[in-house]
């Protein structure tokens, strides 16, 4: 268990970070999500002993790391992965071998293992400067895990990667963390990354932790208005793909069935994300060609962005955005029944780890 208490850091009279209490389970991926400037990186820098806080304690492996004299010994049990790969002007193999060399250790096969795990074996003798951005990130990850760290700190490691590379890299990363039962603290501002990797999560804003819970909870039940504004822009529901025809997936959510376009397969557990602006509200059914339509009850109406946001209950909770004009035209009120529809292509599907998953 990693325990952070009363941690604070201020620059020039301003309090930039204040974490009164945060506990992180060992052997899982803990994600801190928050917008730019929330203090996420500051928190990681403190844990990595790069920054000294004004107050507080961080207990890791039964010891307050802020008090330890032997920083090197602590650092050698952890790995820090930055948003830039920061490779050395050497071959891929030498880059990955460096952490072992610094420790005076010989390679016992872990380099080869990492090359395989991150699928970069064919690049072994290439100079780091000749690699693509995606390959560089793979090398940086292989280098970070080659020493078998107990704790890894990931500071927006996929920031400069496009979606194509990101998805497979996230899968490989999850595999190596699970396989070696590593504790990971992962910092991001991206919801889909957070959903795909986290076991538990915290929302951080303006230097404070607003909420700590499961990913599903955080996205569907944000604790404060601020958190909702940052994470709660989409409807996010857990489901499972039970049938697939071409690239059309049939996803079961409670007793309802949704149709969505995605690359995942039958039996996969997924999160489905629907943006409020993709949900169409109408008074009569069959008004569109959309694949998904349901009867729904309006549970709440509140101002949102330039119009309004409707919370709807249709077997699951759904958010929709409407203009003031539509509210008037359709005469929408709380507790009234309406029809909702959205296209199969409007659903964003993210694969998730099944709950209570043990490896």
């Amino acid at each position, binding site marked *: 268990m990693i325990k952070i208490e009363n941690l604070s850091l201020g620059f020039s009279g301003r309090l930039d970070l204040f974490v009164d209490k945060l506990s992180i389970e060992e052997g899982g991926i803990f994600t801190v999500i928050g917008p730019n400037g929330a203090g996420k990186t500051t928190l990681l820098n403190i844990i990595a002993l*790069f920054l000294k806080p004004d107050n507080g304690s961080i207990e890791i492996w039964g010891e307050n790391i802020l008090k330890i004299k032997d920083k090197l010994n602590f*650092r050698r049990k*952890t790995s*820090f992965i930055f948003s*830039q790969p*920061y490779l050395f*002007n050497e071959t891929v193999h030498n880059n990955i071998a460096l952490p072992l060399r*610094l420790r005076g250790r010989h390679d016992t096969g872990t380099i080869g293992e990492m090359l395989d795990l991150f699928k970069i074996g064919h690049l072994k003798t290439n*100079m780091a400067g000749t690699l693509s951005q995606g390959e560089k990130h793979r090398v940086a990850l292989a280098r970070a895990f080659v*020493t078998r760290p107990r704790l890894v700190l990931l500071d927006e490691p996929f920031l400069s990667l496009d979606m194509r590379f990101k998805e497979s890299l996230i899968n490989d990363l999850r595999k190596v963390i699970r396989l070696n039962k590593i504790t990971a603290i992962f910092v991001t501002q991206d919801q889909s990354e957070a959903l795909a990797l986290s076991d538990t999560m915290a929302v951080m804003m303006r230097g404070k932790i607003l909420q700590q819970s499961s990913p599903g909870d955080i996205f569907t039940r944000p604790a404060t208005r601020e958190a909702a504004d940052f994470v709660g822009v989409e409807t996010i529901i857990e489901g499972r793909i039970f049938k697939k025809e071409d690239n059309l997936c049939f996803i079961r959510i409670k007793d309802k069935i949704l149709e969505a376009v995605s690359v995942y397969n039958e039996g996969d557990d997924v999160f489905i994300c629907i943006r409020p602006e993709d949900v169409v509200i109408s008074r009569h059914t069959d008004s569109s060609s959309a694949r998904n339509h349901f009867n729904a009850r309006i549970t709440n109406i509140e101002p949102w962005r330039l119009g309004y946001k409707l919370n709807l209950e249709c077997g699951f909770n759904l958010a929709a955005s409407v203009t003031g004009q539509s509210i008037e035209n359709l005469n929408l009120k709380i507790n009234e029944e309406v029809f909702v529809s959205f296209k199969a292509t409007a659903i964003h599907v993210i694969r998730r780890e099944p709950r209570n998953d043990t490896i």
Partner: protein
Amino acid sequence: MNFILEGIKKGIILLFGLNSEVLVILRLSLWVSMLATLIAVLIGVPLGSIIAIKKFPFKKIIIALINTGMGLPPVVVGLFVVLFLSRSGPFGFLQWLYTPIGMVLAQVIIATPIITGLSLAAVQSVDPRFYQQILSLGATTTQSIWVLLKEIRLSILAAVIAGFGSVISEVGAVMMVGGNIKGQTRVLTTATVLETHMGNFEIAIALGLILITMSFIVNLALTFIQQSREKQK
């Protein structure tokens, strides 16, 4: 006009028929300046790196002092080295005045701030997160500086080239500290000054050409090392 052309012609002939006197001068020049550069590198590169990396009070003032040192006038260095090494000076007992060791000392004092200052600037130009990355891979302070220096070896080699260039071409300090004694402390620059004063222009031109050629060969070698590494990128 004619005497210049004549001088260059004779100079080139002298250049190819290196007599033993010129050889002695050439060897001493190389020996003194290379040794001085080596010592300055051993002091300046680690010192510059540590100043760049560590946080400590008055850091900016120290950096300003080093930057000032990069432009130290060789005559002033020569003056102080003479004062300290003279028989009545605090280090007079070493009897280094008018010896090659004294000349090396003077050149070390000239080259060290240059190499320190340029190394410092090179290390400071690296993204601080890059240094944190090295630390987080499990490096000790010494290891981290070594890894970092290897990464910026191009800039460090540029600092070495600048340091060597400043001492091989310098005349004021070696003249004062060495005394331009024939066969003992006479180097290319001091010999060139002497021959020019005496009106032996062709010898002066020959010495000047040797100085430039030698400087070119040494820098060519350093540049080859620098650029061959670059190609591997």
